[in-house]
């Protein structure tokens, strides 16, 4: 076990796979010589050289499109979108080309690639550099969607994503870059589509993702300490494939469901979770399903406003406490 930052785990995860498979290549803006604007790819060009770690112009359509063409023809490209907001610039490549081509060709071509991106808020970067866009990708058939919350998961899910024969959107959360955690030694792989039950509990289920996971965990601690409420916390880890059974199992036990979502409210990923549980888990539920999300507005840049707009530990604690009380 070594302690790594989430930031360092990104490069470690990519390096692990580049060592294993010479077909794994990395492209993006400033990913090479500069080691990435967030230092997420530091050291890679030194170890693997400029043929495998390529700096590109500011041409997101070409970056993503080239990754697709390379993936169709034998490479295993990892392409970086510097900020996840920039997916919008290359959205056609992602949703109309990459996501659909295997299906449209009835399996004639495979597109094994990873689109990595710095996702999420907390750095006061404002509305065009702080979005959580995992729900955009979740809505598109043909994309797998990953969003790790710990350094170990960054490495393990990165490995699984790069080895996966299908396109994977890999969301690295800016707000977690500086966090630290143990990463197992040797080759580490975490399969896509398995949620992690981070804390067991029987009073309610709290489902969270990425930067909302540590907040949910902290909230669960306070709920237990201050209010005697014993929450189960699930880290979804991947939205597609979705570990719906893990959620349904938990709700069967707790009878109460909360989601904690960083994305703006309307059609945040929790909406799909809620709709699944409101159907398949309906008879387990004792009370309303509650989604705790950013309100349906763009992200403001001012520190006080950004802190207020995202779900906080306090908001989770208060909402869960209040809604459990209401339902008594």
């Amino acid at each position, binding site marked *: 076990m070594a302690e790594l930052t989430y930031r360092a785990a990104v490069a470690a995860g990519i390096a692990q796979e580049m060592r294993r498979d010479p077909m794994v*290549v990395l492209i993006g803006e400033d990913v090479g010589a500069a080691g990435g604007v967030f230092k997420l790819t530091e050291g890679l060009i030194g170890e693997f050289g400029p043929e495998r770690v390529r700096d590109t112009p500011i041409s997101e*359509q070409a970056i*993503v499109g*080239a990754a*697709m063409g390379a993936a169709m*023809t034998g490479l295993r490209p990892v392409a970086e979108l510097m900020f996840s907001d920039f997916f919008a610039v290359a959205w*056609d490549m992602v949703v109309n080309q990459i996501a659909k081509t295997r299906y449209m060709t*009835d399996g004639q071509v495979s597109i094994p690639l990873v689109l990595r991106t710095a996702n999420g808020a907390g750095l006061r970067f404002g509305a065009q550099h702080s979005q959580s866009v995992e729900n955009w990708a979740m809505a598109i058939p043909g994309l797998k969607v990953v969003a790790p919350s710990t350094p170990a998961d960054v490495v393990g899910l990165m490995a699984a994503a790069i080895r996966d024969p299908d396109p994977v959107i890999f969301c690295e959360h800016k707000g977690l870059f500086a966090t630290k955690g143990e990463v197992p030694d040797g080759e580490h792989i975490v399969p896509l589509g398995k949620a992690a039950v981070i804390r067991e509990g029987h009073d309610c289920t709290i489902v969270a993702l990425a930067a909302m996971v540590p907040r949910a965990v902290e909230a669960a601690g306070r709920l237990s300490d201050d209010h005697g409420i014993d929450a189960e916390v699930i880290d979804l880890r991947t939205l597609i494939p979705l*570990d719906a059974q893990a959620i349904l199992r938990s709700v069967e036990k707790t009878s109460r469901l909360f989601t904690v979502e960083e994305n703006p409210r309307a059609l945040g990923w929790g909406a799909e979770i809620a709709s699944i549980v409101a159907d398949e888990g309906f008879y387990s539920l004792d009370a309303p399903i509650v989604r705790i999300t950013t309100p349906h507005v763009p992200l403001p840049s001012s520190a006080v406003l950004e802190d207020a707009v995202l779900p906080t530990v306090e908001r989770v604690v208060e909402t869960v406490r209040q809604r459990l009380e209401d339902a008594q």
Partner: protein
Amino acid sequence: MAGTSSRPAAAPPDIDARLAMYRVMVECRTFEVRAQELFFEGLVRGTTHLGVGQEAVAAGFAAAMRDDDYSFATYRGHNHALARGTDMAGLYAELFGRATGLMGGKGGSMHITSAEHHMMGSYAIVGAHLPIALGAAWSAQYRKSGQVAVCFFGDGTTNIGAFHEALNMAAVWKAPVVFVCENNQYMEYTPIGAVTAVARPAADRAAAYDLEAIVVDGNDVEAVFGVAATAVERARAGDGPSLVEALTYRHGGHSRADPGKYRPDEEVKAWLARDPIPAQRARLRSAGVDAATLDTIDANVAAKVAAAEAAARGAPEPLPDVIETQLWADGGSSWRN
């Protein structure tokens, strides 16, 4: 029209190659003219975009490509698929939406793909496949496979952002890719000149990527072959991409439903008179090929097309259970447990 290229021309094709190109053009034409009839018969559903009149571009390029070179085409892609050897019955079956279609009825006319023939797909969002073709070229460069990617697109495509990004990145990376603009003078119903700042939508942009301006008569299959061979070899030699503008014309409308009435009669007439197929036939005749040889080709093609049609007509409709297959490489489409 000659290319403005100053590079040495490729070796001229021998007579077999010239006959082969003729045959490819006739195959494309016969296949598509019949497809249009079958559309009106109700057999072809959805939409089709025919390349009738533009066959010389597909035939000339395909003849200059190695078997493992990649083709990338648009929704107007039947010619390019056929020129690479794609199965004709599978192609008709795909237009009919049958189970034996190249893509099992999932893709349709706008997405013809035959990966087996390195025909890597037909793309229906204007401009999208230029970066994708660049990616295939990058892959070939990285794998040192010697393969070249050839990417066909229309004049209207030169005004979309992806064109610009792909051209620049290809030039910077010296990627082995040939970008071929089939300038058929129209986007859908709007003449290209009405919406483009320059007269030659592709060639006048070449310098923006430090590339040579290359214009070729896209209705002259041998001229196309010459330019194609030069560009493909340049790419294969590691000298980077080319941008070729081939001047041509679609005989019909943009898509199956469009009679193309917005085009001046004179213009249509002038281009019909420059039909690439009779032109190549005449050239072969004057090169000493007898009429019977050419007639035999025509007859063989007609028989092949008829057989393909019959096979496709007899093919079953797809079963609904294929809907949830082949989204993922595991063959399925499951997104949750």
